[in-house]
C-alpha cells in the first residue's frame, strides 16, 4: 500500500474559498448593471435563483417603502378562507378603509390561489358588486401595464391595483385586485342591459361555435341566427359584414392588445364581449388573461367567429394598423405611465427583493410589450390564420331563421322591393311616403344609410308584432293640421317598434307626427324599448307631435345625441312616457300626462344625460313626473307638476335643479335618493318654486340631499345653454 502525498485541506482553506465566492457574488450583484443580471443566464441558472442572490447581496437599493391598502377577510374559526378548497360560496366578514360588511367568497376557478368576493347588492364595495383577488408578485405589474395599454386603446377594462390580504388572522401577502366584469360593471360603463358573452376560437370545440352568453336565451333569440348568417356570408367572400355586428373600434383595439399580450397566440385565449342591444353590436372588452395560462403555439386553424372574422375585414384591419401606428408613436408616453406605475407599486411589490433588479426585470417586461423590437412586428401578418367553421357547424345552423340585414350591392333592389311592397316610392337614395295609406305587414329594415321621408297626410299602418327599422336619416314632415300617422293595423294588437338606429351621424327630424298602438321590438339584433325608438342619432328634433298609447316599456326612447322636443304631447304609456339615455338637450313646452289609471311609469326619465326642461306640464303620472338618474344633470324651469306620485326625483349621483315651477297635489314634490347601490346618492337643488297641496314637500334618503338655494347662478344657466 502506498501512502498518499496529498496535503489535507484545512478549515481555513475552506473558509477562504467560501469568502472568495461570496465576495465574487457580492461584487457581481453590488456593481453589475441590473439589466445584465435580468438577462438570460447560462448553465441553467434560473431567474428566481438570480433574484434570491440579488436580494441577499444587493445593498444599493432603497428598501420597500410603500404600503398597500389592507383587505381583511375574517371567518369563523373552523371556516378559514385559505383552507376552503371548494368551488362554492362561503360567508365571511370583509373590511377595508371605510367599509365593513359580511360578504360571500369563493375560490377563483380560473387561476390558482385566487378568490372572488361578492358584496351585497344593496351594499356594494366602492360601487363594485364583485372583486377578484389573485396572489401578486412583482410580475403582477404586467397586468397593470396591460390595463394602461387597454386604456390607451380605448377598451373597457377593469382597473387593476394591489392590496395586502389579511385572512384567517394571517398576512397572506400581496394580491392583485380587479373588479369582476358583471352587469353592474357594464352599466357603469354605459352598457346597461348589455349581454355578457365569452368567445373562444378553437375549431374543434363545439362550444366555441357561438358566443357563450351568461343568459343564453337572449343571445339565442336575437343574435345567434344573425351571426350564423354572417359567417356563411363571410365564408362566401363577404368579408365586410362584421362591422355591422361587432363594434369596429374596440374590436381593432382588442386585436392589437391581444397581439401585444400574446403575440401570434392571441386567439388561443377566449375573449370577452358585451352585446349592446340598443345598437345591435358586440362590444369587445379586455380582461387580462389569467396567470399561469399556457402559452401554446397558435393552432393550425381558427374558428371563424365575430372577432377572428373582424380581422378579415379591411376597415377593421385599417383600424388595427392605425392603432398599432399610434401605439408606436405614443410609446414614449405609455412608458412614462409605466414608469409612474413602477414608482407607485414596485416598492410595495418587491417585498424584500432587490428593487433595482426588479426594476430591470420590469423594464424587460415593458420592452416585450411595447419595445422597439415588439413594435416593429406586424400584427396583421402575425395573426393571419385559416378561418373555419368546423365542429359540425354546417348541420347545426339548419333551420335558423336569420332575418338579419347588412349593406350590400343589392341595397337599391331591396329599397325598390320595399317601395313596391308598401306602395311608397324611391327618390334618389330616399324612400318617400307621400300622402296615402301604407300597410307594413312584417318586419321592415330599410337598407343602411338610406333616408326615409314621410310627407304630410301619410298614414303608416304596422301589422301586429311587426317593427320598422330605419338606418339612415328620418324626416317626418307633418303639421299640426295635416299630420303624419303611424298606427297599429289592428287596433287590438300592437305593432312592435318604429326604430331609427344610426351610427352617430344621422339627423332625425319629426314634425306633426301622431303615433299610437305600438309596443317594443326586436329587429336585426337590436332591442327597441320604445314604440318610437331613436338610437345613435346625432340630433333628434320632435315638434308638434302626439305620441300616445304604447303597450311597451317607453312611448319614446332616445339613446344618444342632442335632442330637442318641443310642443309635443306624450300620453298614456304602459310604463314610461319619454326615456332619454345619454342625451343632451332640451324639452320645451311639452305635455306629459296619463289619462288612464293603470299606466305606471314616469313622465320623463333621464339617464346619464344633461337636459333642460322648460314650460312643460307633468300630470297624473303614477310614478314620477321627472326621474333623473345615473349621474344625470337636469334643470327644470317654469313647469307644472300636478297629481303625480312624485314630482321631481333625483337619483344615483344625479343633480337636479328646479326653479320657477309649480307643484300641486303630488304625493311628494321633491325626492332624492340612491336607487342603484352601485351609484351614490343624489342632490336636488330647489330655487324658488311654488308648492301647493302636496302630501309631502320633499324626501331624501341618507345618501342624498335636497338643498334650498336662492339664485340660479349664471354658470349653471350657461351649463344648460341658457342665456
Amino acid at each position, binding site marked *: 500500500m502506498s501512502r498518499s502525498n496529498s496535503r489535507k485541506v484545512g478549515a481555513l482553506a475552506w473558509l477562504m474559498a467560501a469568502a472568495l465566492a461570496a465576495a465574487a457574488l457580492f461584487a457581481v450583484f453590488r456593481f453589475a448593471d441590473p439589466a445584465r443580471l435580468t438577462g438570460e443566464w447560462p448553465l441553467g441558472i434560473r431567474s428566481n435563483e438570480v433574484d434570491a442572490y440579488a436580494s441577499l447581496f444587493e445593498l444599493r437599493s432603497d428598501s420597500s417603502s410603500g404600503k398597500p391598502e389592507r383587505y381583511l377577510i375574517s371567518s369563523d374559526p373552523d371556516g378559514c378562507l385559505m383552507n376552503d378548497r371548494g368551488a362554492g360560496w362561503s360567508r365571511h366578514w370583509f373590511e377595508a378603509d371605510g367599509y365593513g360588511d359580511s360578504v360571500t367568497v369563493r375560490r377563483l376557478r380560473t387561476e390558482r390561489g385566487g378568490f372572488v368576493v361578492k358584496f351585497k347588492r344593496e351594499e356594494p364595495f366602492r360601487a363594485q358588486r364583485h372583486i377578484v383577488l389573485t396572489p401578486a408578485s412583482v410580475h403582477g405589474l404586467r397586468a397593470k401595464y396591460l390595463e394602461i395599454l387597454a386604456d390607451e386603446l380605448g377598451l373597457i377594462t377593469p382597473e387593476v391595483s394591489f392590496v395586502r390580504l389579511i385572512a384567517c388572522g394571517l398576512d397572506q401577502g400581496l394580491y392583485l385586485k380587479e373588479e369582476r366584469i358583471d352587469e353592474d360593471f357594464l352599466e357603469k360603463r354605459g352598457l346597461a342591459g348589455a349581454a355578457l358573452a365569452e368567445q373562444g376560437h378553437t375549431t374543434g370545440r*363545439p362550444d366555441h361555435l357561438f358566443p357563450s352568453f351568461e343568459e343564453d336565451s337572449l343571445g339565442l333569440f336575437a343574435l345567434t341566427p344573425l351571426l350564423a348568417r354572417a359567417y356563411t356570408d363571410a365564408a362566401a367572400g363577404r368579408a365586410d359584414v362584421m362591422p355591422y355586428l361587432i363594434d369596429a373600434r374596440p374590436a381593432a383595439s382588442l386585436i392589437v392588445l391581444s397581439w401585444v399580450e400574446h403575440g401570434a397566440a392571441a386567439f388561443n385565449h377566449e375573449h370577452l364581449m358585451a352585446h349592446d342591444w340598443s345598437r345591435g353590436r358586440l362590444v369587445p372588452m379586455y380582461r387580462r388573461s389569467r396567470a399561469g395560462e399556457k402559452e401554446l403555439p397558435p393552432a393550425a386553424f381558427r374558428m371563424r367567429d365575430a372577432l377572428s372574422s373582424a380581422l378579415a375585414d379591411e376597415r377593421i384591419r385599417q383600424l388595427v394598423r392605425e392603432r398599432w401606428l399610434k401605439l408606436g408613436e405614443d410609446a414614449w408616453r405609455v412608458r412614462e405611465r409605466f414608469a409612474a406605475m413602477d414608482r407607485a407599486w414596485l416598492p410595495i411589490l418587491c417585498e424584500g427583493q432587490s428593487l433595482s433588479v426588479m426594476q430591470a426585470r420590469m423594464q424587460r417586461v415593458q420592452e416585450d410589450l411595447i419595445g422597439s423590437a415588439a413594435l416593429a412586428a406586424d400584427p396583421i401578418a402575425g395573426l393571419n390564420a385559416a378561418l373555419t367553421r*368546423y365542429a359540425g357547424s354546417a348541420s347545426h345552423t339548419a333551420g335558423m331563421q336569420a332575418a338579419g340585414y347588412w349593406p350590400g350591392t343589392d341595397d337599391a333592389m331591396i329599397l325598390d322591393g320595399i317601395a313596391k311592397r308598401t306602395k311608397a316610392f324611391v327618390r334618389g337614395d330616399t324612400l318617400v311616403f307621400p300622402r296615402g295609406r301604407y300597410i307594413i305587414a312584417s318586419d321592415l329594415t330599410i337598407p343602411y344609410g338610406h333616408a326615409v321621408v314621410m310627407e304630410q297626410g301619410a298614414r303608416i299602418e304596422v301589422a301586429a308584432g311587426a317593427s320598422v327599422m330605419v338606418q339612415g336619416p328620418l324626416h317626418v314632415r307633418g303639421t299640426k293640421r295635416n299630420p303624419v300617422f303611424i298606427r297599429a293595423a289592428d287596433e287590438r294588437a300592437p305593432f312592435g317598434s318604429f326604430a331609427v338606429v344610426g351610427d352617430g351621424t344621422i339627423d332625425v327630424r319629426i314634425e306633426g307626427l301622431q303615433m299610437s298602438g305600438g309596443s317594443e321590438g326586436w329587429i336585426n339584433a337590436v332591442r327597441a324599448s320604445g314604440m318610437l325608438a331613436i338610437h345613435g342619432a346625432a340630433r333628434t328634433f320632435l315638434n308638434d307631435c302626439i305620441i300616445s298609447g304604447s303597450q311597451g316599456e317607453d312611448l319614446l326612447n332616445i339613446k344618444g345625441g342632442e335632442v330637442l322636443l318641443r310642443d309635443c304631447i306624450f300620453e298614456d304609456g304602459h310604463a314610461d312616457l319619454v326615456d332619454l339615455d345619454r342625451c343632451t338637450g332640451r324639452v320645451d313646452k311639452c305635455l306629459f300626462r296619463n289619462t288612464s289609471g293603470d299606466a305606471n311609469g314616469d313622465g320623463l326619465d333621464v339617464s346619464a344625460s344633461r337636459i333642460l326642461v322648460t314650460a312643460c306640464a307633468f300630470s297624473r303620472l303614477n310614478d314620477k313626473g321627472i326621474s333623473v338618474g345615473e349621474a344625470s344633470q337636469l334643470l327644470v324651469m317654469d313647469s307644472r307638476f300636478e297629481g303625480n306620485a312624485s314630482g321631481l326625483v333625483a337619483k344615483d349621483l344625479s343633480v337636479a335643479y328646479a326653479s320657477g315651477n309649480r307643484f300641486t297635489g303630488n304625493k311628494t314634490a321633491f325626492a332624492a335618493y340612491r336607487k342603484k347601490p352601485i351609484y351614490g346618492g343624489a342632490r336636488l337643488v330647489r330655487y324658488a318654486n311654488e308648492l301647493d297641496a302636496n302630501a309631502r314637500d320633499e324626501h331624501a334618503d341618507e345618501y342624498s340631499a335636497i338643498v334650498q338655494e336662492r339664485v340660479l347662478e349664471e354658470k349653471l344657466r350657461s351649463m344648460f345653454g341658457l342665456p
Partner: protein
Amino acid sequence: MKGPASTLAVLRIAFVALVSLSLLGFAIALGPSRAARIAGAAATSVLVDGFAEEPADHRIPVIDLRIAQESLDSLNADLPWSGGANKRAKLIEHDVEHKVRFRYRGLYTPSHFLGGKKSFRLSMKRSNPWAPYRKVNVINPKAHNLVNNHMAAWVAGSMGVPVPMDELVFTRINGRDIGVMELFEQVDGDFERNRHLWAKAVPVYKGDFPSVEGRALPKGRTLWADAAHWEYSSNADSALAHDKLVRLVAALRMDTMPIAAHRDSIAALIDVDAWLRYEAALLVINTTHIDQYHNQWLVLNPRTGRFYPVLWDALMLFAPPGEPLYYVNDAMSWWTMRIPEWRLQRDRYVHAAMHRLHRKGEFARQLDDVIERIRPSVLADRNKFGNVTLEPADVHRVSLLHVIGSIAGLRSGTTAHWEQTLHRLERAEVEVTRGAALRIRTGSEVPIRLQWSDGPQQVLVNGVAETAASTANGWSIVLHRTLRVKDGGKDHPLADKQSFVVAPLDATIDFGGAIPASLVLTNAVTDEPIE
C-alpha cells in the same frame, strides 16, 4: 479472486434461466407470438420510455382527480360489473376542488377496464372546469390508435357533422399519473345547449346495446327494426320526438311503396343534408364501427323539427382498406344508397372533404398540431396501455414506439384510403358513341352529368322520358349508377354488413334529333369535364 466471479456467473445463469423459463411459460400459456409481442412491448416500454426524462409541461388539459381509496376499491372489486356505480370524487383545477361523480365505463371492450388506465365518466355541476359540458367520458385511447378517435371527431366536425366535444387530456388520480386519455362529451339533452344553439334540453335518442343487467352482456338489437330499441337520453318532453322516431322507423321499412315515397317520408323526419354529411364522414373516416346495433345518436333539432345524427366512437380507419364505395352501415345508410340524388350528394361531400383534408393538407396540419400538443404528455405517460395482440384480453403496457407507430400508421392509412377513394371518385373513363342517339358506356363508378344548351329539355334515357333540370346554362341530367348487392349479400335495409357495388353503365340518350353541339359530359361528383 475466483469466489466472487463464480458467484456472479451463477447469478447470471440463474437470471437467464429465469427469463427463459418465464418466456417459455408464457409462450406455452399464450402462444409464442403473443408472448413475444408482450415481452417486446414490455422491453420497449422500459427501455425506450425510460429515456424521456423531465418532459416539458403539459400542453393539454390535466384532469386531476381525488377519490377515496375505498371507493376505487369497490369499483375495482369485480370489473367490469362492479364499475358502474357512481362514487363521489373531486376534480382539482387551479387548486379548487369541484365535486363530481365518478364511475367506470365501457363493459364491452377489455381495454376500457383492464390495465391501469381505465375509462371513466365524470358527472359535474353546472360550473365546472369543462363547462358548459356536465357529463364527460374519459377513455383509454389505447396506444395503437391514440389519436384516431380524436382526429375522427375533428374530421367529421370539419365536414359539418355534429360531433361531441373531444379533447386529449392527461389524467391523474389521487396524485398518481394515469397518462394520456381522451375526454369527450356525453351526448344527452344538453347537446344543443352546450353549443349555445338552444336554451333548453332537446330530445335525444341513443342507439346502442341495451343496458347491462346482471352479469351478462346483452345481445345487440337491430336499432331500425323498432323504435323501442332506441333509448331516450334527455329530460326534454319526448312525446313528439317519440312519434317522429316511430314514423322514421316505419319509413325505413321495406314495403311496396315506391322509393320516392320513402324518400319523402324520411326527408320529413330527418335532416337529409346532415345525414348525408354523416354518411360521407363514415367513408372519409373509413369506419364500420357504427352499425345496425350501436354507436348511434339522434338529436331532434328544435328549429327544423327533424332529427340529425351525431358521430360517435367512429374509430378512424376501423374498416379494412379497400372497402366498397357503398358500404351499408345500417338501414338509414341502405336507403341513402338507394336514393340516387342522396348518394350523389354524399359522394360530393366525400370528394370535397378528401380534397381539402388530403390534397390541401388540412389533415396533416391538424395532426401535426395535435402531436405537438400531446408530445410532452405522451413522453410523461408511463402508463400506456393497448391491445398488443388481437386478443381483447391482452391489454398491456406499451411504449412510445407504439404511439409513434400508431400515428405513422394513421398518416399512411389515411393517405392510402383517401388516394384510393379519390381515384375512384375522380375516375370517369367513358366511351361515347354518337349516332342517331348518344350511347355512353363506362366501367367507372361515378355518375355522369350531361349538360347542353341548344337542345330539348325532354330526352329519352334508355327509352324512358326524362325532363332535364334547368341550369344557368341550359339543361342538365345525371346518369345515376345502378347499384347491386355484392355477391352473396342480402338486399335488405336491416341486413348486417352489406355493401353495394356499381354496375357498369350502358345508357342511350335520345335527344329527339341531332345531338346538341353544346353537350358537355362531366363527372357528377367532381364536376370535372370528361374528355
